């Protein structure tokens, strides 16, 4: 079935869409039995070099409840100059402009060009060095802005100062008390519905005002997960509520809020997370503004495409139109609902639901939404063979050039009767997409529910999927087989369970919020890396190769390169570390060793240069304290409990009581085949 892999890949490249199922079960009942819902990861602004903007208005279906856009999937009657909407089957006339449309004869451009607005919101309560570094970064960013861009500056400490730029002789600012919840944010009122980026630079937690995170006195530690669980964090709820209101307001007016938080301790990202989460802003967490991590990351915000335009879209709205048999349940990602009811809105809400339109204030080429659908076709109304369901994604946004643009993505998938054609449905399973879609659901739940409940839910889903699609004899775990399209899925789930997205142990609330924020907006590839980090091995025994994320991969004569998305870690095995310490790399006769040492560093640099936000770069070795980052990620196949059973030569034992993938799988099989379940 290589064709499906290719199909999936092609679709992703062309449309920026990946579905959990590429053949859809044709009845509602069957669809619910598939365990993994029909859902898609959609990247609205997926970069495509071959996608020229069309400089005229799209043609819309004339049915007022539909208004779908004319697309290649529509049936066109060229003689009658009619086209049939593939969503509502309305037959539409082509507009007169289509008659003589040509390169030279284009309809009027949409709307005026709007300037970009960048508002710098700077915390002044930080060390001088940090402030200085931040200042330099901001000056750098100013040099990158187009000359037409509008710039604002707000500084805050105990009070908020809105600076009036462009005063001569005196520097003027408007000051507001930090403790007061002002009802009117001036700038927001001034530029409604214009793309604007509010960039907040935060050097520490808020200690006063409605969004305060921690008390004023240094002796009070900032809340931990432990405190939150025991309901001992008195500011969390109030703060979160405040920032949610703020984020909603910003989202309504179409403004993006970025948070750049640099401090050694937490800064209250837990409370503030909704600001970037709801507005499509960035969240960057670092130790100090004076680190390359922040500086590079911030610089990357202003990356430009080949046309010299920022890779950012503003004030986007995503509208989804579906054919009759399927409805949209909701979306999970950096968006807010626009509360637009329509015929294609499902009553069954998943994520941000109850609407067919969402606002995505900030869009980057990788911004990806998970969109969940519900098959509503009744069991007794079969769809004829060869019938296709269609979904249209209409994304309107303000391009960084100031233009308003619309991107229309229309896809169609075959229907199949799950009772007779279960194999073809199973074969269309995109386990990677499914893993991410399920992960988003789990993390979405984790934001509101208790951690163990989410894990239990995730486990149950996995077991049900195994029961549905595995081949086995009842009550015989050893007989369990999974087809290729499902084979990796349990492993993803295993790592997801261990990931910081669902495990809060050892992570501060801020870190959890930070990790979750990025997971919820990255595209499939990056998300997969986050769930299951990639491990490369470099050794003299051959070219660099990907190896299992397993403790058995940790060998003395290997260099490992691990990419967890947030961290790039180079680990030198025991022997390599000793060689390096002895300085062999500096001896001409051991040049090959120097090359070996250099190879992972070069690869790491490549990743470091392209990724946003820039990952933390860690160079460590066997026994090094930072090796813990590696040891905590790998599958603990060897632990202090079983290391001798596995042989002493291979791998490094992990001192943990966590279950290994093998144990996990054994249990899974046992439960899946159990007739009691």
């Amino acid at each position: 079935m290589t064709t499906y892999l290719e199909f999936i890949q092609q679709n992703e490249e062309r449309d920026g869409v990946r579905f959990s199922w590429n053949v859809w079960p044709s009845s509602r009942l069957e669809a619910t039995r598939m365990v993994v819902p029909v859902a898609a990861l959609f990247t609205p602004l997926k970069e495509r070099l071959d996608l020229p903007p069309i400089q005229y208005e799209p043609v819309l279906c004339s049915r007022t409840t539909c208004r779908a856009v004319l697309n290649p999937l529509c049936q066109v009657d060229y003689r009658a100059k009619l086209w049939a909407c593939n969503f509502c089957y309305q037959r539409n006339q082509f507009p007169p402009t289509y008659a003589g449309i040509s390169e030279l004869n284009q309809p009027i451009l949409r709307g005026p060009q709007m300037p970009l607005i960048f508002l710098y919101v700077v915390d002044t309560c930080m060390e001088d060095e940090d402030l200085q570094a931040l200042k330099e970064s901001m000056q750098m960013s100013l040099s990158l802005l187009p000359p037409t861009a509008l710039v604002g500056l707000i500084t805050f400490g105990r009070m908020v100062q809105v600076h009036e730029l462009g005063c001569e002789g005196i520097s003027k600012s408007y000051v507001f008390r930090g403790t007061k919840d002002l009802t009117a944010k001036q700038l927001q009122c001034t530029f409604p519905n214009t793309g604007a980026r509010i960039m907040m630079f935060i050097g520490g937690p808020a200690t006063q005002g409605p969004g305060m995170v921690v008390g004023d006195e240094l002796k009070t530690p900032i809340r931990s997960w432990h405190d939150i669980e025991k309901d001992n964090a008195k500011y969390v709820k109030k703060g979160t509520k405040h920032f949610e209101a703020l984020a909603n307001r910003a989202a309504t007016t179409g403004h993006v809020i970025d948070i750049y938080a640099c401090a050694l301790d937490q800064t209250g990202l837990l409370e503030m997370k909704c600001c970037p989460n709801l507005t499509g802003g960035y969240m960057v967490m670092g130790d100090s503004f004076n680190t390359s991590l922040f500086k590079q990351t911030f610089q990357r915000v202003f990356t430009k495409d080949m046309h010299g335009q920022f890779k950012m879209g503003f004030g986007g709205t995503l509208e989804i139109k579906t054919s009759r048999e399927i409805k949209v349940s909701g979306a999970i990602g950096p968006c807010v609902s626009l509360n637009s009811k329509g015929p294609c809105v499902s009553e069954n809400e998943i994520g941000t639901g109850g609407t067919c339109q969402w606002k995505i204030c900030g869009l980057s080429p990788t911004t990806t939404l998970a969109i969940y659908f519900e098959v509503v076709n009744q069991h007794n109304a079969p769809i004829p063979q060869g019938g296709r369901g269609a979904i249209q994604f209409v994304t309107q946004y303000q391009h960084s050039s100031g233009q308003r643009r619309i991107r229309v993505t229309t896809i169609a998938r075959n229907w199949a009767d799950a009772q007779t054609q279960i194999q073809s449905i199973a074969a269309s399973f995109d386990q990677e997409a499914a893993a991410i879609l399920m992960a988003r659901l789990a993390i979405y739940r984790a934001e509101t529910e208790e951690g163990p409940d989410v894990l239990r839910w995730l486990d149950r889903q996995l077991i049900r999927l195994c029961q549905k699609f595995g081949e086995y004899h009842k009550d015989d775990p050893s007989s369990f087989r999974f087809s290729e399209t499902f084979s990796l899925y349990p492993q993803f789930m295993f790592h997801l369970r261990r990931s910081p997205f669902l495990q809060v142990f050892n992570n501060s609330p801020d870190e959890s919020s930070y990790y979750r924020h990025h997971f919820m907006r990255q595209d499939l590839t990056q998300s997969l890396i986050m769930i299951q980090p990639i491990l490369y091995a470099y050794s003299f025994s051959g070219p660099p190769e990907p190896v299992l994320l397993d403790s058995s991969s940790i060998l003395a004569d290997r260099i490992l390169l691990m990419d967890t998305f947030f961290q790039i870690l180079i680990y030198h095995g025991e022997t390599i570390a000793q060689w390096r310490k002895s300085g062999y790399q500096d001896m001409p006769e051991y040049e090959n060793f120097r090359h070996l040492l250099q190879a992972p560093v070069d690869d790491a640099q490549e990743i470091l240069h392209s990724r946003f936000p820039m990952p933390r770069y860690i160079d460590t070795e066997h026994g090094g304290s930072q090796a813990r980052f590696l040891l905590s990620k790998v599958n603990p196949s060897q632990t202090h409990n079983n290391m001798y059973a596995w042989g002493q030569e291979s791998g490094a034992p992990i001192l943990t009581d966590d279950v290994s993938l093998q144990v996990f799988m054994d249990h899974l099989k046992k439960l899946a085949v159990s007739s009691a379940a």
Partner: protein
Amino acid sequence: MSQQGYVATPPYSQAQSGMGLTPPLYGHYGDPSHAGAPPGAMKPAGPMGAAPGGVLPPGPPPPGPHQFGQNGAHAQGHPPQRFPGPPPASGAPPSYAPYPPATQSSYPSPLPPASVSQLGRQLDTMHISYGSGMAPPGQGPPGSQSAPSGQGPPPPLQPSILQPGSQVLPPPPTTLNGLGAPPMPPPGPAPPNAQLQPPPLPGQTLGSGYPPQQGNYGPQMPGAQLAYPGGFPGGPAQMAGPPPPQRKLDPDAVPSPIQVIENDRATRGGQVYATSTRGQVPPLVTTDCVVQDQGNASPRYIRCTTYCFPCTADMAKQAQIPLAAVITPFATVPSNETPLYLVNHGEAGPVRCNRCKAYMCPFMQFIEGGRRFQCGFCSCVNEVPPFYFQHLDHVGRRLDHGERPELSLGSYEYVATLDYCRKNKPPNPPAFIFMIDVSYSNIKSGLVRLICEELKTVLERLPREEPELPSAVRVGFVTYNKVLHFFNVKSNLAQPQMMVVTDVGEVFVPLLDGFLVNYQESQSVIHNLLDQIPEMFADSNENETVFAPVIQAGMEALKAADCPGKLLIFHSSLPTAEAPGKLRNRDDKKLINTDKEKYVDVASLGLVPQLTGGTLYKYNNFQMHLDSPQFLSDLRNDVEKKIGFDAIMRVRTSTGFRATDFFGGIVMNNTTDVEMAAIDCDKAVTVEFRHDDKLSEDSGALIQCAVLYTTIGGQRRLRIHNLALSCSAQLADLYKSCETDALINFFAKSAFKAVLHQPLKLIREILVNQTSHMLASASLLQLILPDSMKVLPVYMNSLLKSCVLLSRPDIPTDERAFQRQLVMTMGVADSQLFFYPQLLPIPRLAHQCSQRPARLEISYRFFPSPRVLEVNYCQQLPFR
């Protein structure tokens, strides 16, 4: 530490043995110039005046000669300055140097001791004879008057008849010759041994206050006789003369305040007034003299309505004389008077009575060999703290009596310990915040530019603790219209930073560091700012202002800086912007949109300065060319004047009476503590006393006013003023000791306070009734007004003419409120001038300017004259 200036002095303290409360007479601490002043000459009532200089009488030597001896003969043995006094000691005859020129002209050179004593004797003579002053004034020199003394009726020198139609004027005011006149030959029975005189008989005491008047008499008599042919030789009965009582009021017959003022000036002006004697009436406020503290506070600090209190409440009721003291604790003293000495007991702090908490003062009696002292106020016997112990001499006075200001002076200061500070923390130096209304009208009138320009000069002259040190006062700047603009003028800034606060509903100070700065350090930034402010708002069309938020902002700033301070608000319009404290126009609606419309609701806004010890300056319809000189002078004066912050005042009295009512720019949270955010040299608190028991003639009535405050340099201090009054069971004594100017001050304040809750008609009636009652009782027997109250009717008439007590539609409410407020904090000198302004003819020829023109009576008679007149209304209110 002032104490180090003290040296052990010879026991001249004996001199006052048996004087009880009367302190010794060397008010010349540390200042040899004063010490060596011709005491005899200058202190008519003082015992040392009687002591022939150089000739030490046997027995307890009077202090006078001693001082001479000390400064002359023993000078080498003692540092010349016992207290570090301000005027530097200079040479051999330094003693005389500091006296004002007027004095010197009267006594052109240091008088030889003999003449000094002669003069002293002469003066004594005079007041002795004054006591018998029933003699017709026109008959011969006073020295020759020999009527029986002790008679104690009202001094008839310039008697007035009560009946309105027949009031008789004193002699014409050609007083200058009085000054120049050589002392009368010393005949008469002047007792050189003046120690015997006090404790003075009431009459004598009074006399001591008045003798100079007689001095005038010699030359003036002819005039007097001309004007009032009917002298009053024996009494009213014999009053004969053209103006019979029934006749229409003859303007010339009305007692002339000018006459009284000039008489007092002639007789007492330029002299030394020593405060040694209990109950002596000081010279009038209009009279320049040198006050020497000899155990009682200078009249500059405390002036009473009467210097003799009735013994009983019944008597007080009968007399209806208000018993009040006008206290100006920070009054400015002229440079030729000794400033207050500072006492520092280190960590021990001031010595106080355990029971009533009165501070150590000359009224405390040391007993049991100095181990204990008895409080003069509550009679409680207290242990003397070990550090304070000192042996007593054979007359029961401490050996260090002369070295400690608190034992021998009426006024002095203590360094307060941390116990007297808020939160037991030393205070920070105060801050001045300049808050300028930059709304359209203020910009347009040019006032903002004027202020900014002037501030550059004014800021150079911020008040300072020590003249040689830079001022510790920090300054801050705020401008406002309907929003507030704060300025960061930190010294390291290249240009000032402006911070706008729009949240006037809940105003706050947007910056801590850089708002209040040291002027010297931030001078360039401040000048930069002051240059820019008029430009910045030049195009402003904003004509709405806020007021309450401005004050709140200033308060918050001071609170944040944890310091006391002063807000200088330059406000020009009714605060109509939407904010707390918004006001509506309550004035005449017909005037709206006319030129006359200029209403800022002084009654409401003025409460702020009034309750915080501030000053309200008001300029009607400010016009640059007319008002700027006055405005600038007010501004300079206000910034530079001496001021104390965070003050709390307590007036303690000896048993038998107590302070019951207080008027002034004060806040009281209980019945005794007078709280003042600030008090400056112009502010007075008028205190009314009432009996709660009997007073005895022996012990008199003692008053101690203690003000705890923070100096301009940020030091916490206690300023103590002590005053002893006499008591009498004779009504006549009371009237004789009355002080009309203080009475008017009291009446004005109590009436102005009453206007808030009583109808004007009633207030006016009360004033008239009480005045006539007082005058009637005073002259019950003779129908002659006592000298001390002669001009009371005229002054009362002036008070009744004050627009505050008139209700006429053409008087703007702002003006009434303003004048009311102005008077409420006035001292006696100011209120005198306010209610009886100076009317001066302006000489037609320039060369005539060399001499000060004589003051004219305020009477319609002078107004039709073609002469140009200048009215010196009050320093704050130029006549327009």
